[in-house]
């Protein structure tokens, strides 16, 4: 048993932490108001190799591991959860399908530029009628002489407007099974809009996608036909580690803010941190941050060991996201009326945290996933 990070893992974490504090943090509150997606920062993250952490150098990656990737997402998420979401969605949902199921030609053409940050990548699974029940995909695909033609609508898709490609799932008519396809940006019939007004995660790009008879050549089907359902379950397992890591970042930020404020603010002649009722809140937050981080890193470690990690990833995502929700609520509470104001960052943490218990599988769905591993079906 060993809970220490390796030298590489700590150096990666320290580098990302430094970047997060120096480059990302200063504009985060402002971007939350304007909803501006920080594309210049994302370009720098690509240049520094952040997007390639879990992929080998052969495919434009940095040759790191899932543990390092989780640490990086946590550090970005700690100062700007919106950017953390864009980062996590790009790597776990956008790049991973190419890495896991792509042919070498597909990886060369799409994964290398995505992993090095030349463009973003998106994963189009959710539809108006298929959310938690993502197998309920209504998007259709037909075979044509040249390849495929895809028609349907995807909603709530992160990063799609600036994506170089979108991985989209669609149902094939002959056997009703789902396959996935790489849809390059600019393909005729593809339209993307980013017009949602969101509660939180306001400077992450959330898009609606219309596929109107989009023609995809034969060599852009991803993996075997009919394997789309299996594929997206596996992608979501990996994605949960990153949403868990993002949640740890938000929970840590909430704790940091609450700790600082409770030692500065005085009422009844004493610092708030002096009151036991406040101390107990801080103690619970600190404990939950620690537990959440440990579980996220365990799931990441299992994945790196090529062991089963689906149950642990679901537990990590569920626990960490709910811990982030509680921690951010308590952080606002500890700030009192000031916490309700935009002058302090904690109300942003609270709004951002709510996405974490919804996206990439709601808390209810995580419990289903865990229970399925416990109770034989």
């Amino acid at each position, binding site marked *: 048993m060993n809970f220490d990070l390796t*030298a*590489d893992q700590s*150096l*990666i974490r320290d*580098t990302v932490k*430094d*970047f997060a504090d120096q480059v990302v943090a200063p504009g985060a509150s402002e971007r939350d108001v304007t909803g501006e997606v920080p594309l210049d920062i994302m370009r720098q993250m690509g*240049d*520094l*190799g*952040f997007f*390639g*952490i879990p992929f080998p*150098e052969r495919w434009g*990656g*940095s*040759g*790191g591991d899932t543990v*390092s990737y989780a640490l990086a997402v946590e550090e970005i998420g700690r100062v700007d959860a919106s950017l953390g979401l864009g980062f996590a969605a790009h790597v776990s949902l956008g790049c991973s399908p190419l890495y896991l199921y792509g042919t070498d030609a597909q990886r060369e053409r799409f994964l290398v530029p995505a992993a090095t940050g030349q463009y973003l990548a998106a994963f189009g699974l959710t539809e108006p009628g298929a959310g938690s029940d993502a197998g309920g995909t209504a998007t259709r695909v037909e075979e044509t002489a040249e390849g495929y033609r895809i028609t349907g609508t995807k909603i709530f898709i992160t990063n799609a407007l600036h994506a170089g490609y979108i991985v989209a799932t669609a149902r094939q008519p002959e056997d009703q099974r789902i396959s996935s396809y790489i849809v390059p940006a600019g393909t005729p019939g593809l339209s993307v809009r980013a017009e949602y007004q969101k509660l939180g995660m306001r400077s992450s790009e959330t898009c609606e996608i219309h596929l109107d008879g989009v023609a995809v050549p034969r060599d852009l089907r991803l993996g075997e036909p009919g394997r789309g359902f299996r594929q997206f379950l596996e992608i979501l397992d990996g994605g949960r580690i990153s949403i868990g890591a993002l949640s740890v970042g938000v929970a840590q930020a909430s704790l940091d803010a609450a700790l600082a404020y409770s030692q500065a603010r005085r009422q009844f002649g004493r610092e708030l941190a002096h009151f036991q009722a406040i101390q107990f809140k801080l103690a619970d937050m600190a404990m939950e941050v620690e537990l959440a981080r440990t579980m996220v890193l365990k799931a990441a470690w299992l994945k790196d060991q090529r062991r089963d990690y689906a149950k642990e990833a679901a537990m990590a995502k569920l626990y960490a996201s709910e811990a982030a929700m509680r921690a951010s609520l308590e952080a606002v509470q500890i700030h009192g009326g000031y916490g309700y104001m935009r002058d302090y960052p904690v109300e942003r943490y609270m709004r951002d945290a709510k996405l974490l218990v919804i996206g990439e599988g709601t808390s209810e769905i995580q419990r289903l996933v865990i229970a399925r591993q416990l109770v034989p079906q």
Partner: protein
Amino acid sequence: MKIAVLVKQVPDTATRIALAADGASIQTSGIKWVLNPYDEFAIEEALKLRDAHTGEVVLVSFGPDRVEETIRQGLAMGADRAIWVKEEPSGSAEMDYLGRAQVLVAALAQEAEWDLVLVGKQAVDDDAAQTGPLVAALLNWPQAMVVLGLEVDARARRLKVIRELEGATERVELPMPAVLGAQRGLNVPRYPTLPNIMKAKRKEVRQVALADLGLDAASLADDRRVVVEGYQLPPPRPEPKVLTGDPAEAAAELVQLLHREAQIL
């Protein structure tokens, strides 16, 4: 160009320092160690010169086991390899700046054809600002410290240097090889890219013992000229004074205090 950068590991400036029982050293347990911030400017400048003129950047450091992490950080920024003179846990604590400079110079002397030696203008631990000048003196090379700007004419083997003075800058020209001490503002140090972090562990870090350099810690310590007699922590900050009451009276009192106590007015 073959450039050596002398790097030192120092406590993170955010670390709360506690004195050891002897009062003449600090407690090293629980300290977060980092690369001396001025050394980052030195490394960045060396990397820029290497990229413009080809050649290699070699880090040279003297320190105990924990220093390897700091060396790897410099390699992750892009330095090509490192020479690490290993400091044994006992003995060398007594060495002074000159002794340490002798160690670094002996390490440099193991190789030939250095074009430049870059250092941070000072290390933020003891703020002595001695290493650069002492190394230059021992090598018998010219030196320029507190460097804000650097132009290299590789063919003529001459350097044009801008140095920071109090409220002014100074331009000097010197021949190569030389020792230069980097000041904040010389450049903006790059972040290590993640592929470079991963590659850093495959780069050569040559370990050298003091004995390999024909030196030993005890005699260097015996020869010291500077002895640290003791450290004192700064006195705790006094409680801030809060003026209450009638604004006109408080303002008058404030002016008085600024005059008498703060002696600003």
